[in-house]
């Protein structure tokens, strides 16, 4: 659904651009191709890396790891799993809901969801290409620490601890 909208908008804009200025449109497409070609090697590497990590850490393994653990160790484990995995939201949220039903705490799930979305260890090679090593490492570290803050607040507000 999202994709249809994205393609629709792109095609319409491309047509408008073409009718207004053919030369500029050509230039735009050249730029698109150049920036895509530039990042392709990293993209391909990240895809393979994702395959390896996700094959090893499937939802069943994850739920085994954090389903029964609690306290700070559980939260840390959750945040680390969230940081290294790259699970699309439409898989992650139902999975998190399932974990909650199976007895995981709100704090753990808060840490997991937060670091899952903000920290990307697997995609770091891509991020470094754009932002450099230093900033990438800092951003991911700060986001990782921040996911504990989120976990704490969610535990307080939602879990009522």
């Amino acid at each position, binding site marked *: 659904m*999202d994709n249809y909208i*994205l393609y629709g*908008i*792109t095609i319409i*804009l*491309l047509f408008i*651009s073409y009718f207004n200025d053919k030369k500029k*449109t050509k*230039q*735009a*497409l*050249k*730029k*698109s*191709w150049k*920036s*895509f070609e530039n*990042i392709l*090697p*990293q*993209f391909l*590497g*990240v*895809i*393979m*890396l*994702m*395959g*390896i990590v996700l*094959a*090893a850490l499937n939802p069943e393994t994850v739920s085994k790891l954090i389903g029964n653990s609690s306290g700070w160790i559980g939260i840390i484990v959750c945040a680390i799993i969230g940081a290294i995995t*790259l699970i*699309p*939201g*439409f898989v992650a*949220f139902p999975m*998190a809901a399932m974990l909650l039903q199976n007895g995981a705490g*709100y704090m753990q*799930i*808060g840490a997991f*969801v*937060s670091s899952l*979305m*903000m920290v990307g260890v697997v*995609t770091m090679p*891509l991020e470094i*290409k*754009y*932002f450099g090593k*230093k*900033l990438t490492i*800092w*951003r991911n570290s*700060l*986001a990782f620490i*921040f996911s504990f803050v*989120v976990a704490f*607040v969610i535990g307080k*507000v*939602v879990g009522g601890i």
Partner: protein
Amino acid sequence: MKDIKGLLKRYQFFLVTIVIVAIVALVNRSLGLKALGIAGYSFKEMALVIPPVFVLLGLLDVWVPREIMMRYMGEGSGLKGIILAIIIGSAAAGPLYGAFPVAAVFMKKGVKFSNILIFIGAWSTTKIPMFLFELSALGVPFAVTRLLVDIPGIIIIAYALQLVISKDEIDEIYKKAESL
């Protein structure tokens, strides 16, 4: 010969990951095949999303003048720039790595560094489609609490990052974006 060497160097990381998958497959056949299957699936997903994103970026690069982007999101854009960065990031679809090429075009257009970092933060965690999904899966208190903590968090992280990185390093990142 030099071309092949350059190509090998560029694809070094990809080649290493292929070797890792091959080794995994040798040790544990089913795990290796599963990794390949997941990689194939992700590749299909990306192949679908990436073309329009890069075409849109090319159009943005050619049609939107630097002055306009600078006025709305550049130095001195203040609160307006911050709010725009959050809105654009939140309206996006797709995984975090999709945000990086967009950030590179923003840099070319003179968008302030802190706003780019806020944009990345918003893309990573306050995306509207994902928020709606989170609401239905984990409930209103969970999703709303997370959103309310995340918005100030994103802004704080953006400014903290600006503190740890020097002006020269930021210039370096902007210069690199020109060539991407």
